[in-house]
C-alpha cells in the first residue's frame, strides 16, 4: 500500500479542487485524478480513439450495506436511478431524453459497489453530465413508478432462478455468510423487493448517496480541463454528508466459519453434477499481499500446462476444474468449481483433494508457470484498457473493492509476488481452514449416484 493515499491535500482554491489522495505521477499519463471540495472524486481518462465519452458514477453501496430488511434494495435503488427526477418528470420522458442524446446506458449492483453509466457522443458531454447529475442527486421515487418497477426487478430475479446453477450459488452463499447472508446477496429477497416503498429508497439515499461516498469517471475523447471545469460547475454544490457514513452505519464483521460443512442442491433441470467449494479469503485492505498472491496463484493453477489441470482435466477425471479469489474489502470469497466426470466421481474427488494438499509445496508450480500467470494478468489488463467504455467499470470496481491506488499499482505488485507469498496465502486461507462444499444434482443423478450426503472437501 503506497502512502500517497493519505498525503497531499494541496487545495487549488481557484479551481475548487484538491489534488489529494493520489499523486498524478503515480497514474498513467492519460489519467487525471482530482477531488472536489465536497469530496466527490473525479477521474478523467483521455482516450481519443473513438468520438465517444463514457460518464460513470459509482457509489460505495451494494449488498454489503444491506440488513435482511433491505436485502436486494441497493439493486432496486439502482433501477430507480433511470426514472423520474426533478428535471425529468417520468421514466417515459427519461427514455425520450436518452433517445435525444443517443445514450447507451446501464447500471449494475454488486457486493460493494453500485455504478451507473452512460456512453454518448463526445460532442454531447455537457448534456450527459447534466443528465447524470439530475439522476444521481434528485430522484423522485414516485410511488407509481416503484409499484411498476418492483415486479420488473423481481422478474430479473426469476430469470436468474431459471438456471439451476443459481441455486447452487445461493445455497453456497447462505452457508458461507450465515447471519450476514443479506450482505453478500445482491439479487435480494422476493418479498423485500415486492414490498419496497419510496420511504426505503429515501433511507438508502440519505445513508449513502453523497459526493464524499462517490466517484465520477469521465473517459473518452475529452479534454481534461474542460471536464474538470464542467464537473465542478455541475456537481460542485452537491452537499457532502455531515457524518462519517461507515462509522454511523458500520459493516459488521463476517464471522469465520467454525467448521467445514456441506450441502446438496437438488434441481430437476440440472444436467451434469457440479461441485462448488467456498471459503473465506483475504480482506483487500487488510492483507493486500495475500490478494496479489491469490490472483497469481489461482491463475497459475488454471493454466492448461499446470499439473492441477493435467491431473484433473487432461486425465479425464473432470470436465472442468478451477478457482479464484474475488477482491473485496469485506472478506472476498475463494471459490472453486469442479465438474466431475460422473463415471469416475470418487477418483475425481480423491485427485482434487490430493492436488489441493500439495498447493503449499515449494515445487507445486514451476518458475515458468508463475511467470506465465503474472504475464497473463498483465496482458488481461492491457486488453481491458482497449475498450475505454468497459474499462471504466473495472476502474470503479477496484475503487470500491480496494481503492484506485490498488489498481494503479496492480500489475507492478503482481510482479513482486514470490513463491513464498503464494505458499503463505495457501497456508493462511486454504490449508486447514474450514470450507463449504456443495454439489448440484438432479433428483435422477442423486438416485443413480446413491448420494445422500456430500462430504466437505478435505483441505
Amino acid at each position, binding site marked *: 500500500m503506497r502512502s500517497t493515499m493519505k498525503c497531499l491535500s494541496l487545495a487549488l482554491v481557484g479551481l475548487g479542487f484538491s489534488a489529494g489522495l493520489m499523486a498524478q505521477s503515480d497514474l*498513467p499519463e*492519460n489519467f487525471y485524478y482530482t477531488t472536489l471540495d465536497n469530496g466527490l472524486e473525479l477521474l478523467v481518462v483521455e*482516450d*481519443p*480513439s*473513438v*468520438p*465517444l465519452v463514457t460518464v460513470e458514477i459509482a457509489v460505495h453501496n451494494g449488498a454489503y450495506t444491506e440488513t435482511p430488511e433491505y436485502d436486494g434494495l441497493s439493486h432496486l435503488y439502482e433501477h430507480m436511478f433511470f426514472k423520474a427526477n426533478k428535471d425529468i418528470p417520468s421514466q*417515459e420522458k427519461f*427514455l425520450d431524453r*436518452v*433517445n435525444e*442524446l*443517443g445514450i*447507451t446506458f446501464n447500471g449494475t449492483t454488486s457486493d460493494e459497489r453500485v455504478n451507473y453509466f452512460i*456512453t*454518448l*457522443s463526445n460532442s454531447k458531454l455537457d448534456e450527459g453530465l447534466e443528465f447524470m447529475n439530475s439522476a444521481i442527486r434528485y430522484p423522485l421515487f414516485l410511488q407509481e413508478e416503484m409499484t*411498476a418497477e418492483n*415486479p*420488473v*426487478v423481481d*422478474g*430479473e*430475479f*426469476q*430469470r436468474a432462478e*431459471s*438456471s439451476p446453477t443459481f441455486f447452487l450459488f445461493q445455497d453456497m452463499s447462505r452457508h458461507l455468510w450465515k447471519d450476514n447472508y443479506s450482505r453478500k446477496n445482491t439479487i435480494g429477497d422476493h418479498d423485500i423487493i415486492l414490498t419496497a416503498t419510496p420511504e426505503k429508497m429515501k433511507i438508502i439515499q440519505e445513508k449513502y448517496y453523497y459526493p464524499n461516498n462517490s466517484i465520477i469517471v469521465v473517459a473518452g*475523447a475529452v479534454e481534461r480541463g474542460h471536464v474538470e471545469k464542467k464537473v465542478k460547475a455541475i456537481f460542485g454544490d452537491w452537499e457532502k454528508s455531515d457524518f462519517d457514513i461507515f462509522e454511523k452505519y458500520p459493516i459488521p464483521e463476517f464471522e469465520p466459519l467454525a467448521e467445514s460443512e456441506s450441502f446438496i442442491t437438488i434441481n430437476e433441470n440440472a*444436467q*451434469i453434477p457440479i461441485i462448488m467449494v467456498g471459503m473465506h479469503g483475504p480482506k483487500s485492505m487488510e492483507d493486500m499481499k495475500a490478494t496479489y498472491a491469490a490472483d497469481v496463484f489461482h491463475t497459475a493453477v488454471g*493454466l*492448461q*500446462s499446470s499439473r492441477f489441470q493435467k491431473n484433473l*482435466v*487432461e*486425465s*479425464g477425471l473432470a*470436465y472442468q476444474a478451477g478457482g479464484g479469489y474475488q477482491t473485496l474489502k469485506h472478506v472476498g470469497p475463494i471459490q472453486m468449481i469442479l465438474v466431475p*466426470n460422473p463415471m469416475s466421481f470418487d477418483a475425481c474427488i480423491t485427485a482434487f483433494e490430493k492436488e489441493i494438499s500439495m498447493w503449499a509445496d515449494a515445487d507445486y508450480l514451476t518458475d*515458468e*508457470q508463475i*511467470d*506465465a500467470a*503474472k*504475464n*497473463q494478468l*498483465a*496482458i488481461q489488463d*492491457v*486488453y481491458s484498457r*482497449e*475498450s*475505454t*467504455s*468497459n474499462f471504466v467499470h473495472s476502474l470503479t470496481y477496484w475503487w470500491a473493492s480496494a481503492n484506485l491506488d490498488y489498481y494503479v499499482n496492480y*500489475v*507492478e505488485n503482481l*510482479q513482486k509476488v514470490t513463491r513464498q507469498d503464494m505458499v503463505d496465502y495457501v497456508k493462511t486461507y486454504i490449508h486447514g481452514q474450514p470450507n463449504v462444499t456443495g454439489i448440484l444434482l438432479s433428483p435422477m443423478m442423486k438416485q443413480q449416484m446413491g448420494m445422500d450426503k456430500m462430504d466437505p472437501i478435505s483441505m
Partner: protein
Amino acid sequence: MKKLIALAFLFIGSIHMYADNKPKTHEFEVEGVKVIFRESVKGTISARLFIQGGTNNYEKAQEGVENIALNLPMQSGPASMTKDSFNAAAEAVGASFGANSGYDYANISLNCVKMYWDESWDLYAKAITDPAWRQSEFDVFKNQMVANAKQAATNPDSHLDRMGMSKAWEGTNYAKFPSGSPESLEALTLEQVQEHYEKVVCKNRAFLVVVGDISKEDLEAKVKASLASLPTGEAAPALYAGEHVQEGLYVEDRDIETNYIQGMFDAPQKGTEESIYNSLALSILGDRFFQELRTKRSLSYAPAAYSTGYAGRPTNEIYISTTDPKASLDVMIDEVNKIKTEGFTSTELEGKKQKYLTGYYMGQETNSSLSMNLGVSELYGGWEKVDSFTESVLKAKVDDLNGVVQEYGDKIYWTYLGKEELVKPEYFQQPVKAEDLKK
C-alpha cells in the same frame, strides 16, 4: 517481466487521435490466401481465419464436427509440439487462441499483444497448418464438449434459441446445432474430425482478417511462410436458400420461475441497405417494447426486438421472459402491428441514429471486435461496409423504415419454453399481412 509492466501502461498513452482519419484497410492475396488487414495503433493484435460454409459443411448427424475440428488444434497445438509445450509457449507470451463454428461461418482466432506478435503468430500458424490429431486429447476434449452441450440446455435463453432454429427450419441446414448435441458429439470419431478439418481449412473457403499495429509487409511474409501451404480445396456451397419463415408454434414444458418466448420473422437480406433500415426499425421496436411491456405494464424485465438471422435466413426476433405470457403476447403483437400500420416517427429515428452510432463506435474500440466486424461484413457483402455503415445509417428516412417493416415479417414462428399450462395456441397470434396493408 519488467518489459511487460512498462508495456501495460504504455498502450493507453500511445493511442493517437485517429477518429477523424479514415482507418487504412488493405485487401491482398498471398499465394491464394485472401487477407484483409486493418491498421490500428492499439497495442493488441487480433487475427481471425474465417472459414466459409457453416452448417452447409456437414450433415445433421455430425453436427458439432466443425466446432471440434477447429477447436482441437487450438487446444493441442501442432504435430511438431506436445500439447504441453504448445500451451506453455502460448502462456509464456500471453497468446490466446480460440475457434467458433456458427450457422454461416466459423473462425479460428488469435489475440496477442504486439510485443509477442512474432511468437504468437508462429504458434497460431503452426497449429493451423500442421495440427496434431492425438486420440487421447480428442477423447478428453470430446467429453468436455458433451458436458458443455448438456449444460447449455439448462440455460433457458440458449435452449430457446436452439429450439427456435431447429423447429422453424426443420430439415434445413439451420436446424443443425453448430456446437453439437450430446448425441452427435458422442458419435464423432477422430478420423471424421480430421477429415472435416482437411476439407474446410483450405484456400478456397478461408480468408484471414488481421487488425493491429504491424506492417503489411510483415503480415505478407508471415502468411507466405505459413498459411500459403494450406491446400486449395473446394469452395463452400452457397448458403442462400430463399425460403421464408412460416407461421408456427413450438412449446416445450419446463418448470422454471419465468417463461421464455421468442418470435421469429423474415428480414431483408444481410449486407443490403434495406438490412440497415431493418436494424434501425427493430431497434426502435425494442424501445417501444421496453416502454409498453416493462415501463408501463411491468410484464417483463427483458423484452427485446432485434435483427438477427443468418445469410440464408435473414430474420428478426422478438423476445420476452415473463410470468404472464398471455398479456405479454397481446402487447407484443399489438406493437408489431402498430409499426406496420402506423410506422415510425422522425423523432424516434433521429434519436435512434445517434444511439446506433454510439453503439457502432463502441464496437470499434477493440481490435478483436473490429476483426470480427470486418470478417462478418466480408461474408455478407464486403468488408468496406464497416466503413460506410455510419453513412447508411445517417441517410435513413422514416419511409425507408416503414417500407421494410411493411414488406417483411407477416408470418411469425413462435417458440415457448416454460410452464405449458400457462399458454394456449391461440395466444400466439400472427401480425397483419402485407397484402392487407397494401389494400
